[in-house]
């Protein structure tokens, strides 16, 4: 008889303490946690959420078994928060496209960001304007939950796995897998520059469901066949400029270029 009794979590106590924190972000990822619906009850029952500024003010300086962090490091304050949270947490999870791959804020890395900032702020005196990097470039990240926004069911599954002491992993399957199983139309075959075949799936192909191409908000597979995809794009007449614009949307142009060089 196999003993399948889940072991007490290796991450600490029976009811792990959890922090859910934002850096500079739109809060969309944390909204997905709040919007878990019926699953939220399970999350709240099993976790001791001690710090979640979005829903409850006040800090409780403590150690955390698990910490979720969304957003980008834009200010020195952000960096301090991130470094402190790393020290406080046993298991640090970057959640969302910004935290995992740079996301939308990374667009400015590919533009003249000094010029951009002047267009946006009247006075740029106290505005920090760093290059945007994924959080793993600053501190050790134990797990990434990608996506813009991340998938709710995936968040719940990952929490459930952590609770039995299992390190969750997201299967290395492209968005095409989920798109084709759901019998959505293949936009790449229609001549559109869809990045689904090289992008990590798990989003249930929501964009394809609405007839939108995949823009790689979940980042790339570990070893994608990007060189061959480029050949298809070129055949379809996609210009370098249009490809760059597409890749910059979620800040994956640098990763893409790295893959092409490898």
């Amino acid at each position, binding site marked *: 008889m196999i003993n399948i009794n889940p072991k007490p979590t290796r991450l600490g106590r029976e009811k792990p303490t959890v922090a859910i924190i934002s850096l500079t972000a739109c809060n969309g990822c944390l909204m997905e946690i709040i919007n878990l619906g019926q699953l939220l009850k*399970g999350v709240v029952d*099993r976790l001791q959420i001690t710090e979640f500024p979005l829903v409850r003010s006040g800090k409780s300086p403590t150690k955390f078994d698990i910490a979720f962090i969304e957003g980008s490091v834009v200010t020195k304050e952000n960096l301090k928060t991130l470094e402190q949270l790393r020290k406080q947490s046993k298991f640090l999870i970057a959640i969302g496209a910004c935290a995992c791959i740079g996301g939308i804020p990374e667009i400015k890395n590919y533009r003249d960001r000094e010029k951009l900032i002047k267009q946006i702020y009247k006075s740029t005196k106290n505005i920090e304007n760093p290059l945007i990097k994924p959080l793993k470039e600053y501190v050790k990240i134990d797990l990434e939950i990608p996506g813009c926004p991340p998938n709710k069911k995936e968040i719940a599954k990952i929490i459930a796995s952590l609770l039995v002491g299992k390190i969750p992993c997201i*299967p290395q399957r492209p968005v095409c897998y989920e798109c084709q*199983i759901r*019998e959505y139309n293949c936009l790449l075959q229609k001549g559109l520059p869809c990045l689904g*075949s090289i992008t990590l799936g798990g989003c249930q192909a929501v964009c394809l469901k609405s007839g939108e191409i995949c823009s790689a908000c979940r980042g790339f597979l570990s070893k994608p*066949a990007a060189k*061959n995809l480029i050949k298809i794009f070129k055949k379809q007449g996609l210009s370098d400029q249009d490809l760059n614009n597409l890749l910059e949307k979620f800040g994956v142009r640098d990763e893409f270029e790295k893959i092409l060089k490898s």
Partner: protein
Amino acid sequence: MDKKQLQKFIQWLQEKNYIVIGPTKEDGQILIKTISESSQLDFSGQLPLYSFKKYLVPSREILFKYKKDDFKADLTAFKQALIGVSIFDLKAILLYNQVFEKDPYYQARLNNTLIIGQSQIPQFQNLSFKVWEDKYEEDILEHLQFDIFLGQAKEKKSSEFKIFTGSKKGQQILNDFAKQSGWKSDFEHVEYAGPIKEEGANPEMMKIKEKMPGSLETDIWQNLDQRCIECGKCTIVCPTCFCFSLTDQPCLNKDEGMRKRCWDSCFYSEFSEITGGHKFLKNTAERIYNWYYHKFVRIPDEYNFPGCVGCGRCSMVCPAGIKIHEVLESIKTK
């Protein structure tokens, strides 16, 4: 059986709690879906892009749930009638029947499934209607597993189906229907004679099988290595691709969880990965070679029939434009 009687038959199946599933036209595409009446059925002979695979081998299923030490395997399957199953898809069912012979989940589903094949007669052999009357049964139907088969003469497309049965279950159903509906029971029984024709294994298959091994270094695979984007779409639409992965997923409820089985694809990097990180299929060339090797060498070795039904769906969905018949041609002539 004419169209009116077919409609009656479908209604009768629904009254017997069968969910009736068949090809239907939607936005210019043929999709296989639950239908409510026979007029929705599309018997034009146009191949639906997605096969009947998912109704017998679902893309994801829960094998069992656990709660503490208590396991519950769910082997209940609803009654379904698959109607309008093409010869291609029937050939794929032959393979599932072999591969999942000892799989209780598949068997439960199969036991609750009524398989109703359908084909326009000249579609597959270019036989005239008259020739078909003598040869159709022994050349094709005898080597397929189905319950009922609707033979449709191209010339008489609009009106008549010639009805065959291929199982006791099919005979029983038709007899019951005749009794209860007043349909003049008119069908011919075809006894299943195994998947292979009397002349022996398909010579075309043997030829490819002979040429395949050891060809990994040839230009064929190196060329495909430079084209394939590993999207895996071909494996999803392929009616014979049955590979799956198993995942244990704990639930948020304490001490509860489940084991799931879902389709997988040999084009994905983790497919051949084992503990410690070793991968048996290291690059695109090895992956695509493995796909062909499985269909054209390993399955023929195991079952003596090809692992490809020849439907061409993989070519239709390939964004890189890889055509299976061209690849096979270059294997044969290498």
